[in-house]
């Protein structure tokens, strides 16, 4: 209805809008159209209407600018990937194992969002345990791409991106272990941030592969992603990787930047995805930046490293699901979880540990070193998010290796811990979103936001929301 969090807040200040009406608007859209897209698993209807009523009363009694100062995310009607624990609200991880699990405590991100005035309207679908690149590994049902119901929305944060692109929520939070925020954001035309590793607490988020796991926002505009990021990042004392006094670099000014496109990311790229990368390069050059080809020779091994270390960590993290303290027994794991647990157990097993796990951990260090060296020479990396735009449902579902390779350009940021912002650019000739990712040194989120915002301004980017009317046909 208003397209962005910041627009909603402007209307709140002008007293043009009641939060109750806003929340009801989203529920009516969900009730009308989500049976086609399948993004939500659980709705939080009465709670969110009560919450909206509370804020409406507060806004009536108090100066709205004071309310916004106290609740900087007021008006943010959001949902969460079903990996974030929400006290009293079912949390499934997209898996039958947790089909009826009601958590007794909150994840830090959820807690920070609601304390900042945001309103949770529901929990959304994802690949079970965040294992997947298409959303089709959910144990419940596959979420569909709102731009074309024959296509996948991307995974694993499938419901997050699909629900934002369909206009069912202003924002969502997903998790990105190897592209799981950026890939669906890219396939659905949203902005998605994979933040620096260790900047947003993962407390209360069901773990996948802990040395890669990050959590981050998906929304329609760069400014919305920025305000969400600012309100959830930082120390909470509950995630050992999130330190006190984090130095998120400030960035202001119009200094021309040195931007690199790694040749390893473009060698096999073709069609509209390649053209869009070149289009973005041209716009960034027009804005005064220098764009050159660079090389990260060992990133061609990124997926191999990832598909050793990640299943190893998965097999360990999923070991806690024993069906005793919570959830159903291990027999309820779906095929993909079983595959990863077996692969992880294999690479860690006696006789193979050194050949696989240890080798991968060493190659990861080589890739890390290359990346740190590269940022001595350039300020930012411009790259495709994935080899293709959204692909068709069922296209890769029976070929796990092919599915894994969808993440080939996403893996590097997770292996090295650097932030990456996926931004939409334009639509393809067949009406599917296209986009790119910008990666920067650790803690350079503000630089990514600034460059992306100016890029969008230059191309007169309009929020990409899929036309739901078309779904009625």
């Amino acid at each position: 209805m208003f397209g962005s969090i910041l627009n909603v807040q402007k209307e709140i200040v002008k007293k043009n809008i009641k939060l109750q009406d806003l929340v009801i608007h989203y529920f009516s859209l969900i009730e009308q159209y989500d049976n086609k897209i399948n993004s939500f698993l659980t709705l939080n209807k009465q709670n969110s209407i009560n919450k909206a009523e509370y804020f409406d009363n507060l806004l009536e009694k108090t100066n709205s600018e004071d309310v916004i100062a106290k609740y900087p995310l007021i008006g943010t009607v959001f949902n969460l990937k079903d990996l974030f624990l929400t006290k009293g609200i079912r949390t499934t991880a997209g898996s039958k194992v947790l089909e009826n699990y009601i958590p007794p405590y909150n994840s830090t991100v959820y807690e920070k969002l609601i304390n900042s005035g945001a309103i949770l309207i529901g929990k959304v679908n994802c690949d079970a345990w965040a294992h997947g690149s298409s959303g089709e590994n959910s144990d419940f049902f596959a979420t569909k791409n709102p731009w074309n119901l024959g296509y996948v929305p991307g995974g694993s944060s499938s419901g997050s991106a699909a629900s934002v692109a369909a206009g069912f929520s202003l924002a969502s939070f997903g998790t990105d272990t190897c592209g799981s925020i950026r890939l669906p954001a890219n396939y659905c035309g949203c902005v998605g941030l994979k933040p620096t590793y260790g900047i947003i607490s993962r407390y209360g988020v069901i773990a996948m592969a802990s040395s890669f796991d990050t959590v981050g926002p998906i929304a329609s505009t760069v400014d919305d992603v920025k305000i969400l990021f600012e309100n959830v990042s930082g120390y909470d004392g509950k995630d050992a990787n999130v330190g006190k006094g984090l130095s998120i670099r400030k960035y202001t000014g119009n200094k021309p930047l040195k931007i690199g496109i790694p040749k390893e990311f473009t060698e096999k790229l073709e069609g509209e995805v390649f053209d869009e990368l070149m289009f973005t390069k041209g716009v960034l050059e027009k804005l005064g930046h220098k764009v050159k080809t660079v090389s990260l020779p060992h990133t061609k091994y990124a997926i191999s490293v990832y598909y050793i270390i990640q299943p190893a960590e998965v097999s360990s993290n999923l070991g806690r699901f024993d069906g005793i303290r919570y959830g159903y027994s291990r027999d309820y794991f779906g095929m993909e979880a079983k595959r990863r647990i077996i692969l992880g157990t294999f690479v860690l097993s006696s006789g193979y540990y050194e050949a696989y796990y240890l080798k991968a951990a060493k190659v990861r260090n080589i890739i890390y070193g290359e990346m740190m060296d590269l940022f001595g020479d350039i300020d930012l990396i411009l790259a495709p998010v994935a080899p293709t735009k959204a692909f068709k449902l069922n296209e890769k579902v029976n070929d796990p290796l092919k599915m894994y390779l969808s993440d080939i350009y996403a893996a590097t940021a997770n292996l090295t811990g650097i932030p990456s912002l996926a931004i939409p650019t334009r639509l393809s000739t067949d009406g599917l979103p296209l986009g790119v990712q910008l990666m920067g040194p650790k803690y350079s989120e503000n630089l990514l936001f600034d460059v992306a915002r100016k890029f969008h301004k230059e191309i007169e980017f309009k929020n990409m929301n899929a036309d739901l009317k078309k779904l009625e046909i």
Partner: protein
Amino acid sequence: MKKYSMNIDYLSKLANISLTSYEKVKISVQLRDVVKFIDNLNEVNSENVSVLPSSVTLINIFRDDAVEEGLNQNESLNAASEKIDNYFKVQQILKNRGVK
């Protein structure tokens, strides 16, 4: 690198995952492709390279040494599939030897 051989029965026992015979065949075939792919790491010379322990500089993070409220017994037991008298019920692990 050691020649690949994946003993699926052994692995499923280690991982405490029960697999049907169909799943065993399917997973074996699919993982053979994946392992063939990840074997390309053999091309990389990693002699004298140390492992990357973490992509962030790890520092000790301590909270104040003060008692904080945790979950109460009810909340902790709430999601358990089976419980008896405020205890989690688990399967028997040790057998009663000599008792018939």
